[in-house]
């Protein structure tokens, strides 16, 4: 009964979150930026690598400026790119046909952005909020741009061109009125926020929403453990937990962006936790440990087969053969280490990183990279060593449970053989 209730609850939750058009648009809009995030992480990595001869080389060769320009164009502009992606995804979800919409969202975003030099008489952009610090405003801007645009198009308040006008001409006129309205709304919002103590919408939402959200969901090892517990439990009940990641993803990418920027600038990394840390502690280390434990400690033909097919994909972040082959699903023997190991890694990893025993992850997002590479690419050999230690520890945690499972399968297989032999004789 408990199982049924949990699965129903999980399914409902996943429908609510996965079916929510805003959350879906946000994750669909953020995800295509992954290559940009990765390119930016590599640029920060090479710019900030704290090896003296490398630093003197890139300084003298003038490479440091070039690398930092890449960081500026990728990581430090993610707020703009997310806004574009989210507006595009949301418009698509609403079946709104207008190529202009995501570009218009960027125009509105920039119209709202604070000034770098408020004393100057001409307009100027501040870089501060073009990166992940402007993410929350970006989400709102993208959603409202689409909403306003759609409302006006639906109300048919558009300029109609006489028949016979080429499509591309008339389309650009159709977008004109909604475009004007969106930008006028942005101007009004900008003026209104000028009257608040924050001075602009970015400072306001960053302080009121993004800092507390980051504190609750991001830089908090207990909250991470709770999220991870739910993630692992969902797998135990055979439900894909992807919808949870769409909740925490933007915040985690935000933390990574902050860490990367600090690393590239040679400053101390502000946050232990981020997407890079989280990926390394869970998927990158736990999946291979699980697969290797299955491959090493089993004699039954079922587990041997699963071990053989699951090791390589496990190192690349894919766990389905383990989850359904061992299986993890509805199997108390294996659910225990499955749930314990990522949480154990979180706590030990957090302690090691925050105490200074090892470095902090530089925020280099390395989805589907194998462990050790995840540590090295985050700027430190110490992280790679920590991952190996955690990996060995996880293998040991899995060992007794895999052996129990294996014994059971061996007995099953033996009795199946006996039954067959009995039939034949």
């Amino acid at each position, binding site marked *: 009964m408990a199982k049924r209730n949990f*699965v129903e609850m*999980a*399914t409902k939750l*996943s429908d609510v979150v996965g079916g929510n058009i805003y959350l*879906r648009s946000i994750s*669909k809009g953020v995800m295509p930026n992954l290559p940009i995030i990765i390119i930016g992480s590599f640029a920060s990595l090479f710019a900030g690598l704290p090896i003296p001869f490398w630093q003197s080389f890139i300084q003298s060769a003038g490479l440091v400026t070039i690398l930092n320009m890449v960081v500026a164009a990728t990581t430090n502009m993610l707020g703009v790119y997310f806004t574009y992606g989210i507006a595009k995804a949301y418009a698509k979800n609403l079946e709104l046909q207008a190529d202009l919409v995501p570009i218009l969202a960027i125009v509105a975003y920039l119209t709202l952005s604070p000034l770098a030099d408020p004393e100057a008489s001409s307009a100027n952009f501040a870089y501060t909020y073009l990166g992940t610090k402007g993410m929350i405003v970006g989400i709102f801007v993208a959603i409202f741009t689409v909403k306003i645009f759609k409302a006006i198009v639906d109300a048919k308040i558009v300029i109609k061109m006489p028949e016979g006008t080429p499509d591309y001409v008339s389309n650009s006129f159709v977008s004109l009125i909604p475009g004007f309205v969106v930008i006028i709304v942005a101007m009004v919002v900008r003026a209104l926020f000028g009257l608040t103590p924050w001075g602009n919408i970015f400072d306001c939402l960053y302080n009121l929403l993004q800092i507390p959200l980051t504190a609750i969901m991001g830089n908090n090892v207990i909250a991470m453990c709770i999220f991870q517990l739910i993630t692992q439990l969902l*797998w135990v009940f*055979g*439900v*894909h937990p*992807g919808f949870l990641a769409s909740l925490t993803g933007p915040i985690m990418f935000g933390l990574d962006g902050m860490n990367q920027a600090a690393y590239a600038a040679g400053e101390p990394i502000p946050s232990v936790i981020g997407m890079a840390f989280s990926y390394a502690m869970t998927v990158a280390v736990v999946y291979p440990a699980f697969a290797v434990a299955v491959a090493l400690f089993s004699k039954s033909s*079922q587990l041997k*087969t*699963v071990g053989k*097919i699951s090791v390589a*994909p496990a190192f690349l972040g*894919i766990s*389905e*053969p*383990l*989850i*359904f*082959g*061992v*299986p993890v*699903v509805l199997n108390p023997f294996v659910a225990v280490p499955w749930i314990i190991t990522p949480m154990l890694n979180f706590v030990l990893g957090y302690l090691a990183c925050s105490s200074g025993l090892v470095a902090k992850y530089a925020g280099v997002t390395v989805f589907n990279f194998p462990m050790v590479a995840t540590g090295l690419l985050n700027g430190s050999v110490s992280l790679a060593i920590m991952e190996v230690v955690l990996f060995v520890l996880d293998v040991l945690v899995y060992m007794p449970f895999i052996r129990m499972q294996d014994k059971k399968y061996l007995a099953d297989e033996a009795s199946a053989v006996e039954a067959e032999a009995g039939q034949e004789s």
Partner: protein
Amino acid sequence: MKKIVLLCSNGMSTSMMVAKMKDAAAKSGYDCSIAAYALSDAKQVATDADCILVGPQVKHKLGQVQQDCPGVPAAAIEMKDYGMMNGAAVLKAARKMMGEEV
């Protein structure tokens, strides 16, 4: 030629399954197209399929898939076949769903 579509959360783990099914199809000389996609793309890629299979981890989304692709037989892949990446068994199940004698 029959079109078989596999769907999972991102189309990643089912693409492993696709490779195994293609092997099985080639071995038995069965001519078909098999491809994996993300669930959210079902409407765009699977409405003209002859058969849809979803990964067991997204079994609870089967109703949504059936709604998005009316008239296409759809089912979840057996958990064990998925875990063992048993391409032959899954291909057989797909052919049965399409009403073929196997």
